[in-house]
């Protein structure tokens, strides 16, 4: 019996101790008419070598294409030590550290993680994780509505440059609580939110403004002016940021003009770029930081440092009165299990790569994308769409139909980027491309060569060509 250690001899002894005639007698309180039978739709058991064969074949079938898709999930180098240690049984098979004395490993690691995230974001405090970036943004919206005592409304300004899937997730999660999400248009020339466009909301009752950095198009938002506007209008600022980018860009805690009420109030985002593989979308982790004034409104686990009876330093879950197991229907969130193992990996990842290393990674991502863009737009049928500065993603328009290129590129084992038309109908034949530090010069050239050849085949075959912008 896989994973069940019982011998017949022991089963008999155990039943005798219970006073039951057989195992089935232990289920005598279950109504007989409810008993399940068969489960024949479930295949027969496989031993390990047979399921290994199945999984190896399936993993191989999915191949490992050269991938220039970013759009919220990014390929980065992960030091071998990260997952070697994270999957040690002592981390991998422990649970939420309810018994602090027997969980100091996980608890100290979480305290270190909170410190690292607070420093990376230049914020006061961090929680111990949420599910992912998108659901984290939903939690940030709910938190902002609770935390902003100046706002009576539940209105949130949500730029359309926020990841389209994040906006969908926020709607799914907050829609039952009467929160109004006001979508803000982006500037079609520069690809970001124009601060002056917010003037129409001056003096209105707004709970929070969401600021993505970089935004979904890879473009940098004018975080200082947007933060100033929000604070002047008593709205909280929710930053939703890429953590690797924050090693290079001004961190949310410093947004806003010097001398003003500086900094974002809540910062959240997708932690995947810090040591989690792409793995089809999960498990990743959501991070969340905030000003210390708002810590009691923060959802999720938080670890604090304290002392034991002998005065020795120790770590424990704290501020649990916010949480569902204490506060029940009045809790800040229903979240219980979070993404502990991913945070374990991220902490080890940040410790090994270090601050300077992470900054070099961010620089290399930027430089690689800049180089890729230059190679691609060398072709007259490829042009950049936005003028705004970008981090490691860029929107390119093709003057030939994009759909004719995707399949042949996939046949070359190359995924060229994310097609934007499905989310932004005005961006037909536009591709969001990303080249992280993992891409070599040869990778970039391969992409450019394939693309240019395919475009040439299209144009010589007389396919319709759009005029230059």
């Amino acid at each position, binding site marked *: 019996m896989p*994973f069940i250690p019982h011998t017949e001899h022991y089963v008999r002894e*155990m039943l005798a101790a219970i006073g039951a005639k057989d195992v089935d007698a232990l*289920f005598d309180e*279950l109504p007989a008419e*409810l008993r*399940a039978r068969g489960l024949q739709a*479930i*295949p027969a058991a*496989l*031993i390990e070598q047979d*399921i290994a064969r199945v999984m190896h074949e*399936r993993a191989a079938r999915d191949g*490992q294409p050269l991938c220039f898709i970013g*759009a919220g*999930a990014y*390929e980065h*180098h992960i030091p071998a030590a990260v997952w070697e*240690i994270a*999957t040690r049984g*002592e981390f991998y*098979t422990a649970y939420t550290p309810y018994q602090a*004395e027997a969980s*100091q*490993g996980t608890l*100290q690691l979480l*305290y270190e993680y*909170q410190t690292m995230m607070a420093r990376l974001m230049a914020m006061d405090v*961090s929680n111990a994780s949420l599910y*992912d970036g*998108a659901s984290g943004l939903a939690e940030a919206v709910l938190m902002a509505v609770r935390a902003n005592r100046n706002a009576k409304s539940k209105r949130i300004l949500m730029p359309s440059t926020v990841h389209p*899937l994040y906006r969908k997730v926020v709607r*799914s*999660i907050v829609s039952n609580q009467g929160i109004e999400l006001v979508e803000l248009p982006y500037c079609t020339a520069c690809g970001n939110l124009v601060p002056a466009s917010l003037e129409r909301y001056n003096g209105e009752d707004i709970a929070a403004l969401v600021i993505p950095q970089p935004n979904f198009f890879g473009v940098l938002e004018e975080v200082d002016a947007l933060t100033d506007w929000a604070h002047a209008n008593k709205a909280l600022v929710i930053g939703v940021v890429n953590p690797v980018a924050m090693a*290079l860009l001004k961190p949310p805690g410093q947004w806003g003009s010097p001398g003003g009420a500086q900094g974002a109030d809540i910062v959240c985002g*997708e932690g995947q770029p810090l040591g989690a*593989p792409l793995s*089809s979308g*999960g*498990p990743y982790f959501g991070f969340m930081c905030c000003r210390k004034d708002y810590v009691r409104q923060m959802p999720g686990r938080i670890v*604090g*440092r*304290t*002392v*034991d*009876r002998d005065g020795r330093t*120790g770590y424990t879950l704290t*501020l649990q009165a916010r949480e569902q197991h204490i506060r*029940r*229907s009045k809790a800040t969130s229903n979240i219980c299990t979070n993404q*502990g193992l991913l945070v374990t990996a991220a902490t080890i990842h940040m*410790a*090994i790569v*270090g601050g300077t*290393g992470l*900054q070099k*990674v961010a*620089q290399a991502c*930027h430089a690689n994308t800049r180089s890729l863009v230059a190679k691609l737009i060398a072709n007259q049928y490829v042009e950049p769409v936005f003028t705004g*500065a970008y981090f490691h993603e860029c929107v390119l328009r093709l003057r030939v139909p994009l759909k004719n290129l995707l399949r042949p590129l*996939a046949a070359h084992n190359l995924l060229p980027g994310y097609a934007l038309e499905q989310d932004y109908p005005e961006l037909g034949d536009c591709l969001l491309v990303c080249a992280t530090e993992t891409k070599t010069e040869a990778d970039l050239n391969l992409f450019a060569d394939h693309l240019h050849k395919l475009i040439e085949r299209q144009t010589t075959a007389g396919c319709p060509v759009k005029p230059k912008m």
Partner: protein
Amino acid sequence: MLIFEQSRPGRAATAQSPLHSQDCADIPTSQLRTDAPSLPEVSELQAVRHYTRLSQKNFSIDTNFYPLGSCTMKYNPRACNTLAMLPGFLARHPLGPASAGQGFMACLYELQEMLKEVTGMQAVSLTPAAGAQGEFAGVAMIRAYHVARNDTARTEILVPDAAHGTNPATATMCGYTVHEIPTDKQGDVDLDALKAAVGPHTAGIMLTNPSTLGIFERRIKDIAKIVHDAGGLLYYDGANLNAILGKVRPGDMGFDVIHMNLHKTFSTPHGGGGPGAGPVGVSARLEPFLPVPMVGIDGDEYVWITEKEKPQSIGRLSAFMGNAGVLLRAYIYARMLGHEGMHRVAEYATLNANYLMAKLRDAGFDVAFPNRRATHEFIVTLKKQEKELGTSAMDFAKRLLDFGYHAPTTYFPMLVPECLLIEPSETEAKEDLDGFVAAMVRILDEARSTPEVLKEAPHTQPVRRLDDVRAARELDLTWKAPAA
């Protein structure tokens, strides 16, 4: 010592980042960070040694018996991890085309099918990231169902008082008010109170069966009828599915929507607090509202089912496919159990729990519901010891750590005073259960002879009992370097 205290300026694991800095002059200076983030500056060995040593300060299933009630801490087969982390699975981008994901999607599709069969539900969506998100999806579907029928007067969710805290918290997140239903002396839902509570305002009830009291709710069919007759729906919290896997199916009990905790019943790791996975299953009438994405099949090709195909869906709960890698681990586990192995999970989990309960009772401990069968878990109440000897459930829990046993769940459910909720799981051998009983007996002796040993426990852990009050009052959530 913290990793930050080992940091020295200029030290780095230089093999782990690009060799050179790159010029970023095309980014406006006002957008740039003025200095590198202040992360630890340590060598690779220092980091490896530090985190390896930290891991050794944890109890875990791989190192200790971990009978944490309601959490199903059973063996997490290593094959599930190794095979889910094959490079082809790890490298796949979530927005890559379905044509480059057929192997992955085949696993998800087959997992959906297996979960349907073992729960008796009509359809399954795998996307919720954990139990609480599965609960959210379930209650949001109940709401969407009523709203779609213009039945908008239903504003209340019923929750038994023994329920997990996530249940009432979820109902609130979905915009409902919560009405608690009391438990009767035998540990079942108080049917008279339930009858009095239901009405045209009832959206549904959230139930765990077996309940958090470690007993099977025998009158589940009556409860289903009462709630359904009032126009409400039944939500099944799958936290305790391990107790009944392959024996009875929530769909057959009359539940309209369920969530499953794959990190419990399907043996994916708990990871020090996640990731979990909380798939939801529904009866036919809730199928249109399932969260997306799901995996469908078109001819012999696996396809994504999104908002386009399910316009009434409650939507997405995470950016991509939930905790995809956890789903792969659960798939591998389910294939290794097969149809002939599913019911054994419930049988041996139940055998272990009833054996442990019998042995503890024989050793002089009071069980909370002595006239009932234990399911996969049971409750010991130390009310007598607290009153007569002054030793609390917390003291027993902390002393157990000294004997190398992780403590059971303490002070939950709140209905039973000084309680330990004990769940041994099916993967523990009799010898380990006997060892636990011996430790409990010895602690009981100590409670009588030297109670201070319990009150001062633990004695063998990296720290002794921590000052939680100070932790909450003098918040220290991030490390600051002491002034030089």
